[in-house]
């Protein structure tokens, strides 16, 4: 029986889940950083190229705007310097046009680039990329200039950026780096998870070692990480409960066997003896009668055990009605009236209450308690029922001034077949199931019972029931 529904995700092991989640997180982070770095490199390259071109444009503008054309300077700027860059990665070309797009001066070889002419209307600085017919990439700045005679014109500077372009567009290394990091994070995730789960596997191993025969074993929470200590202590507590009910169950079955063995042994013995020789009818009758009494005892015991086992069935749905607590108690008091009078015990009950419960079970509970009280209260004693109720609970207090129960018996008083004094109980005909039945009836009504007792002074029993259906908080 599983307490929760299981969906598909829950079937994937924690280890796989952690490994995957860790790898995804690590890989995403690495990929992001890589992409950012790539993007930043492209940016820096562009900025450097742009700055270089700008500087060239500025130098030419400076030469032109000096009001006197130093042709030598201009030649230096437009032809010589660019020519010097032949073979370098900063290979660039310059051309100067007048306002009719007639070439004034240009770096030799610029023809091959096939730069288009600036449009007549747009007199502003422009930057663009140019893919030439020779299959090379250029970064171009085109800027309006003015000559000495205030004639307008253009300067175009083109930088061959094919190399940068080739380097940046080749993303092979980035891809390889990403693939490697993906594998690395997967491996790392696997390793870290395995390490992290080590204590969990250890715990599993410990739990597996606990069997029916070693229920006393506990797991030491100090050997495990903090997250697991709570789980382990909860588990240990569960083991405590299982162990105690297991011990009870074992005790119960051995007690039951013992209780059954006694009457059956008696009957067997008596019957064997009477059959071994001829006896008179009266003797046979005597044995039969004695056997009948034992049968009744066994049958009585079976009835009580059956009641207890049924009461333990969680599916048991008992029929409940509104009960007048004082009427039910009065009914049982009346039943025991004659018996109490014999011992001159006074039985009184005070208070009234309404309770939602099962009438037969409630009477049975009161019956068992009262029967005990009368049994263990001396001549001229008293037994008092006090019923109290508030909006949420009904409290029934049963007090007597009987012989009481010694401290050491109190914790086990509700156990099946537990008897404070077996010799006395044998005499009084009890089979040690009365209080166990009381307890199970109270449990079925979600109530609670406490017994306070002082030997030779008396016993006080407090029973608390919730008034409406539900559990007692």
């Amino acid at each position: 029986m599983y307490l929760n529904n299981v969906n598909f995700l829950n079937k994937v092991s924690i280890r796989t889940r952690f490994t995957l989640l860790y790898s995804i997180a690590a890989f995403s982070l690495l990929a992001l950083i890589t992409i950012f770095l790539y993007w930043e490199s492209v940016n820096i390259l562009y900025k450097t190229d742009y700055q270089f071109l700008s500087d060239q444009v500025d130098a030419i503008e400076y030469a032109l705007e000096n009001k006197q054309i130093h042709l030598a300077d201009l030649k230096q700027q437009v032809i010589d310097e660019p020519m010097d860059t032949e073979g370098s990665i900063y290979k660039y070309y310059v051309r100067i046009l007048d306002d009719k797009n007639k070439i004034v001066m240009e770096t030799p070889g610029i023809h091959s680039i096939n730069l288009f002419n600036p449009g007549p209307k747009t007199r502003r600085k422009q930057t663009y990329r140019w893919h030439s017919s020779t299959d090379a990439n250029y970064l171009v700045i085109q800027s309006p200039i003015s000559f000495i005679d205030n004639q307008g014109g253009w300067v175009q500077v083109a930088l061959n950026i094919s190399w940068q372009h080739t380097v940046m567009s080749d993303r092979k290394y980035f891809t390889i780096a990403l693939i490697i990091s993906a594998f690395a994070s997967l491996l790392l995730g696997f390793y870290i998870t395995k390490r992290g789960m080590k204590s969990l596997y250890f715990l599993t191993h410990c739990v597996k070692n606990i069997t029916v025969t070693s229920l006393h074993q506990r797991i030491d929470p100090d050997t495990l990480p903090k997250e697991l200590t709570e789980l382990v202590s909860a588990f240990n507590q569960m083991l405590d409960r299982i162990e105690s009910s297991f011990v009870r169950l074992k005790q119960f079955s051995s007690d039951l066997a013992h209780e059954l063995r006694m009457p059956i042994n008696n009957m067997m013995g008596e019957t064997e003896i009477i059959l071994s020789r001829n006896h008179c009818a009266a003797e046979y009758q005597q044995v039969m009668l004695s056997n009948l009494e034992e049968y009744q005892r066994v049958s009585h015991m079976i009835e009580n055990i059956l009641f207890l086992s049924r009461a333990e069935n969680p599916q048991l749905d008992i029929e409940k009605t509104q009960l007048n607590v004082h009427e039910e108690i009065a009914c049982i008091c009346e039943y025991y009236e004659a018996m109490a009078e014999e011992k001159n015990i006074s039985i009184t009950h005070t208070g009234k209450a309404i309770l939602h419960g099962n009438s037969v079970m409630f009477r049975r509970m009161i019956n068992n308690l009262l029967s005990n009280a009368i049994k263990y209260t001396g001549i001229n004693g008293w037994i008092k029922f006090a019923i109290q109720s508030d909006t949420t609970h009904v409290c029934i207090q049963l007090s007597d001034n009987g012989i009481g129960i010694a401290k050491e018996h109190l914790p086990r008083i509700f156990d099946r077949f537990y008897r404070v004094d077996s010799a006395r109980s044998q005499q009084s005909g009890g089979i040690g199931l009365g209080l166990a039945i009381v307890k199970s009836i109270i449990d079925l009504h979600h109530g609670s019972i406490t017994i306070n007792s002082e030997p030779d002074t008396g016993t006080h029993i407090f029973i608390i029931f919730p008034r409406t259906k539900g559990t007692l908080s």
Partner: protein
Amino acid sequence: MRILIVEDESKTAAYLRKGLNESGFTVDIADNGEDGLHLALNHPYDLIILDVMLPKVDGWTILTAIRRAHPDVRVLFLTARDNLEDKVKGLELGADDYLIKPFAFSELLARIRTLLRRSNTPQSDILSIADLSIDIVKHKAVRGKARLHLSPKEFALLALLVQRTGEVLSRTLIAECIWDINFDSDTNVVDVAIRRLRQKVDDEFDNKLIHTVRGMGYVLEQR
């Protein structure tokens, strides 16, 4: 009086037959549901004792068939199934009573007699045996010439014993009839009550009427 027992457990059936024969009943036995149903439908019985779990045809089915054919015959269920639903089901299907195994034979006998009495004419208000007479309506009991001073419960107990003169009444049955204690309880209470009743009814008279049947219960009769 003719009784049919449908019971597959042969030992139970045998002792029931013996016990009922000795109590003056004619008894037929069927050890499976099919035979039981056949007998029940084709012979006039005053009472049928049915087990629920039976080979071939179960008790519920037999009961339904019997009720259709003979609405007046008394049916008593005798079974080891003791949950409330089964009991309710049995009674709803038309069973007249329901007894759970293990049971005391005296209890079964008392119930059978009650069931068979139900169909007879009601008893009169004044009942008498030997020199004891009781008036059920006026709650008066007289022994010889003396009026007996009884508490209401004592009177009820005496009335029960007188009404069932000659029948052995078990302690459980007495507790159930007089105090409405229909669960397993301390039956010493009944012994005490009977002892007190005897003090008032029998002690002063030589002709004792209330007798103890050891291991079974009490009976009121003239011996």
